[in-house]
């Protein structure tokens, strides 16, 4: 167990509970079989999009160009891709994001993988759509620190961008709304490719090792991970307090419901082995530590703690099987080329 995280009382509670079978709740009478669970992980056949922002190649190219352009930031030095780096599975490999002035922010950069399938955006869900979300970090003083009052006139006078916007939006000039729509349209193309796990779900028994299959059983059964990390994208798009020591109020800042204090969005687990650090605050360095965190039922007991987070009594072999399972979620995603950015000073 990772000593730096484990408070003594949590550890004692977990130890006593796991050592005393009489204290354990009775097991569910009939758990669904592995085959029934497998049916819940089919990959979707198409990427969803909103009716008022239909995808097009022109829009996606514009969105990609904007996404990689650091000139949208106050410093002229940070782009969306600085933190959402495609080479690092659309995150940055840091425990917490770095923003304007190289200052460390409060939360870890979430991946953009499969963001088209999400619901509320941001760790705390404060944005209702990807369009709503995409202008947030550009303007946030701690992140890109951009100013739309300067960005939009610049885009309107830049010949290359004028052409890209005109092609994407039927002759329109750049404005805040179509800027957001283009970036959202590009971000919807970011989908994790077929992983060994998907091949196994599709019927190839040899695609993943037996230990990973046992991990899948634990994930859906005893360990209860799938209660939140559900479906092919391994998220319920929900918000839970998982008992981290962080005092960041998360969604509790917006939603006056007890369970939402210290609650953050369930992140996807796609390519999870490639995306250390972990948790919204980057407080876990590796997946072994994450599994151990859940095995002892989190670090902090408080009224908002999700009831699904409780001592799990997993053996070291169980923990290893869960890790083997999580490693099957890594896919070889398409290589992303850096777009040519329109020339012209800001």
């Amino acid at each position, binding site marked *: 167990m990772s000593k730096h995280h484990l408070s003594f009382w949590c550890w004692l509670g977990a130890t006593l509970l796991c050592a005393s079978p009489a204290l354990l709740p009775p097991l569910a009478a009939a758990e669904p079989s592995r085959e029934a669970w497998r049916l819940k992980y089919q990959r979707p056949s198409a990427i969803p999009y909103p009716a008022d922002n239909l995808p097009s190649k022109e829009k996606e190219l514009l969105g990609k160009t904007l996404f990689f352009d650091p000139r949208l930031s106050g410093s002229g030095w940070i782009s969306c891709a600085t933190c959402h780096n495609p080479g690092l599975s659309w995150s940055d490999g840091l425990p917490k994001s770095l923003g304007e002035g190289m200052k460390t922010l409060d939360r870890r950069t979430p991946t953009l993988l499969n963001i088209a399938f999400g619901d*509320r955006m941001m760790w705390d869900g404060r944005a209702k759509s990807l369009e709503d979300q995409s202008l947030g970090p550009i303007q946030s003083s701690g992140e890109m620190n951009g100013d739309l009052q300067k960005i939009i006139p610049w885009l309107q006078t830049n010949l290359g961008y004028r052409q890209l916007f005109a092609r994407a939006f039927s002759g329109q000039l750049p404005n805040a709304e179509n800027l957001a729509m283009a970036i959202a349209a590009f971000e919807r193309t970011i989908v994790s490719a077929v992983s060994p796990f998907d091949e196994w779900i599709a019927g190839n028994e040899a695609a993943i090792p037996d230990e990973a299959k046992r991990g899948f059983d634990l994930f859906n059964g005893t360990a209860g991970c799938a209660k939140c990390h559900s479906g092919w994208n391994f998220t319920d798009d929900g918000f839970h307090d998982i008992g981290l020591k962080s005092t960041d109020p998360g969604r509790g800042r917006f939603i006056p419901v007890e*369970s*939402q204090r210290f*609650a953050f969005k369930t992140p996807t687990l796609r390519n999870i082995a490639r995306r250390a650090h972990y948790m919204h605050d980057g407080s876990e360095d590796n997946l072994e530590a994450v599994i151990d965190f859940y095995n002892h039922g989190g670090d902090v007991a408080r009224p908002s703690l*999700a009831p*699904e987070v409780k001592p799990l009594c997993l053996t070291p072999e169980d923990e290893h099987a869960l890790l083997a399972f999580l490693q099957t979620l890594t896919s070889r995603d398409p290589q992303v080329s850096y777009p040519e950015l329109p020339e012209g000073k800001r």
Partner: protein
Amino acid sequence: MKKMLLLSTLLTGLAFGEDVVIIQKDKQFSKQVVHLKAGDKLVFKNADDVVHNLYSVSPGTQFGSYTQQPGQTTPVTVSKEGEFEVECAIHPRMKITVKVSK
């Protein structure tokens, strides 16, 4: 006798309204929109193995906030007419519109 029974049913209906049952299963409500009359009782049944919540995202409505354990049934009486959106705070993909008429 028949008249008595009819009258009593009518009175019961007037006094307590009707029960409208909504099931929460697979992190979804069984209906997206529900039409009620003032005084009717909404009954939410959590048929999932996770905790759910009910709260209104429409400001100033009569609807409180409820925590629902797996298997729990939660009755909610709507006394006034109006329309409001109810979500699960934990799983906000779960949304239902409650329309209450006179």
